[in-house]
């Protein structure tokens, strides 16, 4: 049963697909749909049940220049906003494709049954969000992610895609330098599956579960990042981890749960313990011309006045998060270590404000009511930064989404390049759709044009052996380690030393601590059998968590400046040396880790002109 009696013979279920998609959130579902539409046989691996992936938690909306609410918007403005938000480290071709194709991807969702909130003329309504020049986010109240994943899921189940629910990939299988499949296990039964595929799409999302305070679900253990790295692909921009400025801070057990930026888009304001709108006090030069200079003007902006400029609460997430941390550190925080986010105040301006808040922000209303006992139509919320998103990921070709490893594609959060040093809110859901579709299309093409490689029995046997090791070590042995304890220690470490503010000493210490955690992981023991065993699942997650945690720390050490989401106390300013450099990390032939500084992807004259015209 446990594979212990006869460790030499590895039992597994062999499964064959043209295209294997790993991850079933927005990017994975969209990739699977597209690969299938191009005639490929498609397998879709989801770590949880279909429709539960992290996309479901996205709240604010999908950024696309539909120009339904403000006809001055177009793809070029969206492109320029995205590049400015990313401090120009973005891959400009990806940012171009994203801005150009997002509107069509949103309309396609409507054709598949999504029901967005409507503008008065019956078109899709769009809302304001940080860093976007015009109201640009198609949304459904504050549950846009749910609408998106359900629409994709309900469409996908009629397309002839084979889903493999509650199944997790442990390792990619390679033949020479190309990917030929994946070794996975069924979480319910604990049995192994070997997928043989001509092309593999990674759509595994982010890395938030390496941090203590996070808005991310348990699935965010950086599987795609770590799998790709071990298969030889380069990871880029890994020093850029986005801390969303507004997560819940109280009660402790719910700390980190997201409070949507939509609260600020609807007129919510940030105040410190003295009641000051502290965001007015620190507006970065890049945004000075486009930010309101009075509370009055900011309010008019949130209510759709096209002549007004946005309030400073809607500056980019990296900046808002840093300002909140400053207020807290300097003693102007709220009682539970955050700041105040107040939407209730709009009753001074709007009739029926309470009803308006409940209609525009229903999930927030319920979340605070049920988890914190706070009525947000009456009282301010307490909020603070929470680990939310990783800008970095697998380096991919902008058009095809293929990584450095032939046959291996990546899309969505686990791919790097689109967002540069900081992602704008709303650009994630559009990223999933635009590049999920592209990855699916090009993976299907790759599968058509390339024969499948060979799966190595030796590699399969070795992966299985390592996966089962935690059962072989007795939990009662003195050296035995508890997998949950190691994960908790890693979360504390990353939160404190590789978190929102960093310095060289902390990062060096963190790297040594990660090595020690890796040693401890080598002694992890679990009890019970292989059937739905969370202890074993956590033991298997540790390898990926430690892999990308080290990558993040190494990248953060290499970038000796502060830019976007990456803040170094020992290098507090932007340094133009790094303004056109990205940090790439890959595994070398000996299994060691190589860090390199590389120039940002070249930008075309046309795109440079678009940026310059809007600087």
């Amino acid at each position, binding site marked *: 049963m446990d594979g212990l009696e006869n460790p030499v013979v590895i039992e597994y279920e062999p499964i064959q697909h043209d295209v294997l998609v790993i991850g079933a959130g927005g990017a994975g579902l969209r990739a699977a749909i597209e690969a299938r539409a191009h005639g490929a046989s498609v397998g879709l691996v989801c770590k*949880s*049940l*279909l*429709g*539960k*992936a*992290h996309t*479901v*938690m996205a709240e604010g909306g999908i950024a696309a220049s539909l120009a339904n609410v403000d006809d001055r918007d177009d793809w070029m403005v969206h492109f320029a906003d995205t590049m400015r938000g990313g401090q120009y480290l973005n891959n400009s071709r990806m940012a171009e494709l994203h801005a150009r194709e997002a509107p069509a991807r949103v*309309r396609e969702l*409507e*054709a598949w*049954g999504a*029901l967005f*909130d*409507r503008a008065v*003329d*019956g078109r*899709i309504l769009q809302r304001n969000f940080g860093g976007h020049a015009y109201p640009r986010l198609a949304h*459904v*109240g504050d*549950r846009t*992610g*749910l*609408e998106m994943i*359900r629409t994709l899921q*309900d*469409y996908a*189940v*009629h397309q002839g895609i084979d889903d493999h629910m509650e199944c997790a990939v442990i390792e990619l299988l390679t033949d020479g330098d190309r990917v030929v499949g994946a070794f996975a296990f069924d979480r*319910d039964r604990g049995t192994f599956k070997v997928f043989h595929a001509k092309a593999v799409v990674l759509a595994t999302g982010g890395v938030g579960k390496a941090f203590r305070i996070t808005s991310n*679900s*348990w*699935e965010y253990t950086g599987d795609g990042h770590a799998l790709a790295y071990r298969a030889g692909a380069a990871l880029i921009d890994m020093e850029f981890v986005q801390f969303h400025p507004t997560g819940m801070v*109280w*009660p*402790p*057990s*719910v700390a980190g*749960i997201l409070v949507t930026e939509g609260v600020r888009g609807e007129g919510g304001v940030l105040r410190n313990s003295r009641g000051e709108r502290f965001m007015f006090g620190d507006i970065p030069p890049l945004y000075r011309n486009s930010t309101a200079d009075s509370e009055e003007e900011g309010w008019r902006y949130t209510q759709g006045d096209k002549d007004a400029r946005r309030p400073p609460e809607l500056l980019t997430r990296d900046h808002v998060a840093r300002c909140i941390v400053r207020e807290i550190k300097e003693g102007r925080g709220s009682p539970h270590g955050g700041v105040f986010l107040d939407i209730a105040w709009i009753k001074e301006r709007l009739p029926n404000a309470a009803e308006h808040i409940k209609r525009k922000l*229903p*999930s927030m209303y*319920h*979340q605070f009511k*049920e*988890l914190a006992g706070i009525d947000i139509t009456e009282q301010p919320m307490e909020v603070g930064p929470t680990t939310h998103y990783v800008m970095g990921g697998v380096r991919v070709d902008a058009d095809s989404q293929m990584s450095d490893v032939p046959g291996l594609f990546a899309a969505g959060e686990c791919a790097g390049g689109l967002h540069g040093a900081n992602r704008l809110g709303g650009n994630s859901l559009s990223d999933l759709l635009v590049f999920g579709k592209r990855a699916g299309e090009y993976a299907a093409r790759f599968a058509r044009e390339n024969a499948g490689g060979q799966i190595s029995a030796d590699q399969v046997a070795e992966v299985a052996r390592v996966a089962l090791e935690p059962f072989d070590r007795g939990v009662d042995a003195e050296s035995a380690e*508890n*997998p*949950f304890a190691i994960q908790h220690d890693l979360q504390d470490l990353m939160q404190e030393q590789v978190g929102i503010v960093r310095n060289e000493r902390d990062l060096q210490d963190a790297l040594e601590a990660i090595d020690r955690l890796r040693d401890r992981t080598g002694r992890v023991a*679990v*009890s*019970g*059998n292989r*059937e*739905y*065993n*969370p*202890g*074993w699942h*956590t033991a298997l997650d540790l390898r990926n968590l430690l892999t990308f945690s080290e990558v993040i720390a190494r990248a953060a050490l290499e970038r000796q400046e502060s830019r976007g989401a990456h803040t170094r106390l020992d290098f507090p300013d932007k340094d133009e040396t790094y303004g056109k450099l990205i940090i790439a990390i890959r595994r070398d032939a000996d299994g060691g880790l190589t860090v390199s500084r590389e120039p940002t992807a070249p930008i075309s004259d046309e795109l440079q002109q678009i940026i310059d015209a809007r600087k």
Partner: protein
Amino acid sequence: MAKATFRIWRGKADSGEFRDYNCEISEGMVVLDAVHKIQAEQASDLAVRWNCKAGKCGSCSAEINGSPRLLCMTRLDQLPLDKPITIEPMQAFPVVKDLVTDVSWNFEVKKRIKQFAPRPADAEDGTWRILQRDVDRVQEFRKCIECFLCQDVCHVLREHHLHDQFIGPRFLVYAAALEMHPLDTENRVGELRETDGIGYCNITKCCTNVCPEHITITDNAIIPLKERVVDEFYDPLRKIFRVFQK
């Protein structure tokens, strides 16, 4: 720090038992926090399904002191802590292990329901014009997080096990969202009556009461669908009309 006792069902489909776990509790804790703490400190192989821990994904459905709830949205300060808190898996589905049930039947049912089929686009650019007031009703149904607590509490499934004849409240809501979708052109009323078993529902509203998204399942989804079935199949004028058609 205060302590509480959690009486958790451990076992598989064929056998199992309740086991007591003592656990320290702190302010604001939800039941899922306690289960995780027990898992980390006392029973690493205790199986529980969860994802977001924010009431948005609908994974951690179980029964707390006998009522179907989300583990992540049930605060300990709302429960009596002077006696053990019982936590057990949903009763309407087969147990996989401990608190985890096999809900795959729900995914099969959904595939049977005719998919969305929009009318031709209203505008030349391929888009539609829809008013917010025509969307409100369906948006309520689309709040569903597929936690299947409504399926769990429904006596047709829970006690009578008519899974092969009745699709349950979740999929009546799903069918209602499609039937009342302003763009949809498909007709699902025949199936609702014949294969989906809408007649089994005797509107006791148990489903509405357990819905964590507060969807008024019975009044807004099921009763209007029942009316459509009656209109289409039992309206005397239509009956006569059908006779003449034949």
